């Protein structure tokens, strides 16, 4: 069993998301950074879709009541096991009674804790990913206890270079309304840095943007990774918990890797878009 001694700033439970029900308005949810979540699961022999802890920004303390292997991937946190500092991207053998403590994020914003064989979380609408009004709780709480599942090991999957997520280039495709934007704004998109102003699991917002405009579209589908242009010229990048439809022009679209890279950015971080062709 794993007991949560401190639930930090924001900890949730995620798998790769909830699929098949978005036509009823159900968002995908799922790990913000697929790359790191998959790396962590793969290090402990789990399937990519195994349920994992997503720990954001700072805090989180876990007491292990059984022996088990774990792996931590994603952002670099100031963290310790029984007060001894530990590192990302290794399989770590935990002994009964061990305490794992997360301090502040030093580099990146979201870190993933995978437990070998998984842990028990109720699946709601085909997924264990926490989401307000769908799962019974929106976040992990102090005192929560999770039973270990000890599922059979999976074949090792690919491990992506963990440095990849710390890059600041966001590869984007042209969205369906890309052609609405003015030539000068296309130049801005190609050349300027954009500064993250705030973020949550639904979306990323930026301090600077493009020209003020009066574009709007009839409410249409969007997916995680869709970048919308608001009338103020500011952009909203929709993330995993983003709604399924939207009324702002969809000017750009990120792929899963770009979603991972952006998920590791925090307020004040700068990113650069790189327009690529969808081939």
């Amino acid at each position, binding site marked *: 069993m794993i007991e949560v001694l401190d639930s930090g700033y924001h900890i949730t439970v995620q798998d790769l998301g909830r*699929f*098949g*029900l*978005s*036509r*009823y*308005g*159900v*968002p995908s949810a799922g790990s913000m950074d697929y790359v790191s979540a998959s790396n962590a699961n793969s290090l402990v022999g789990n399937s990519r879709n195994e349920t994992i802890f997503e720990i954001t920004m700072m805090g989180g303390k876990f007491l292990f009541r059984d022996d088990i292997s774990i792996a931590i991937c994603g952002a670099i946190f100031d963290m310790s096991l029984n007060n001894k500092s530990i590192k990302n991207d290794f399989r770590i053998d935990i002994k009964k009674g061990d305490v794992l403590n997360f301090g502040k994020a030093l580099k990146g914003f979201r870190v993933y804790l995978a437990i070998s064989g998984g842990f028990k979380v109720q699946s*709601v*609408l*085909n997924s264990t990913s926490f989401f*307000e*009004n*769908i799962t019974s709780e929106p976040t992990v709480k102090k005192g929560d206890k999770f039973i270990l599942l000890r599922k059979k090991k999976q074949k090792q999957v690919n491990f992506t270079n963990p440095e990849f997520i710390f890059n600041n280039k966001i590869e984007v*495709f042209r*969205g*369906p309304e890309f052609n609405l934007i003015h030539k000068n704004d296309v130049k801005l998109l190609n050349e300027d840095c954009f500064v993250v102003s705030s973020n949550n699991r639904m979306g990323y917002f930026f301090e600077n943007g493009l020209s003020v405009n009066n574009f709007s*579209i*009839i*409410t*249409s*589908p*969007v*997916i995680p*990774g869709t970048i919308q242009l608001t009338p103020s010229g500011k952009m909203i990048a929709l993330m995993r918990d983003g*709604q*399924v*439809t939207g009324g702002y022009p969809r000017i750009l*679209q990120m*792929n899963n890797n770009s979603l991972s890279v952006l998920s590791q950015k925090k307020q004040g971080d700068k990113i650069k878009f790189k327009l690529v062709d*969808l081939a």
Partner: protein
Amino acid sequence: MIYLMKKFKINFFRYSLNSILVNWPQKISIEISNDINSFCKVILNNPDVLEFRKGYCSLLIIFKSKIIDYNNVCDTLFEIHNNLQVDDINVVKKSIWEIPVCYEKQFSNDLDEYSKKISLPKEEIIQIHSSKIYYIHMYGFLPGFMYLGGLDSKLFLKRKNIPSRRVIKGSVAIGGTQTGIYPSNSPGGWYVIGNTPLNLFNTSNSTKPVIIPDANYIKFIPVSAEEYSFIEYSVKNLKYKLQKKDYND
């Protein structure tokens, strides 16, 4: 009754590695919705399709894996649309589902302000709002939130400048040219004029979590606060039976 089918011109846009956006003529109409819905029905049976997201006049088809031959997939989709038979369209009879709504003070936080802003007495607002039937174009925004068509233009009002931080579950509200029901607590910028005791979204049904299918109609039935409590009680005890009537064009 045999429904006449109208087919529209569609075009395709490569949206992401594993999704294609299909666009219909960009306007809101039930005929376009019908065309989209009959197309969806066929698409859903395709083993390569993971799911779809619907707009008023567009459809995003999400495939299980990366699209290898985009042009070929588009040709196939075009053919499917082209070959839709009259029989595929609207074979399911549409219903008008009755949604009990209490418009009384404790359930209609914004009704006074809304009434002043559109210069119509409350009684008339309630009368107009509850006399129409509304078409469910699609679900979106929140799990179980219906995009409804059919609001009387006398009730149009630009949404609030500053959205409310918390609109409670069941709130029936008006914003811009639309009316809708909040299926769960949420921030929102629409004017709340009533509340329904119904649960419109059910997380225990993992194949179809909504109670009322889209492409159907709903009608708001005014109820008193007393009736509201009674319905709320029977909903809680799973004894409430949602009423519906046949819809005839």
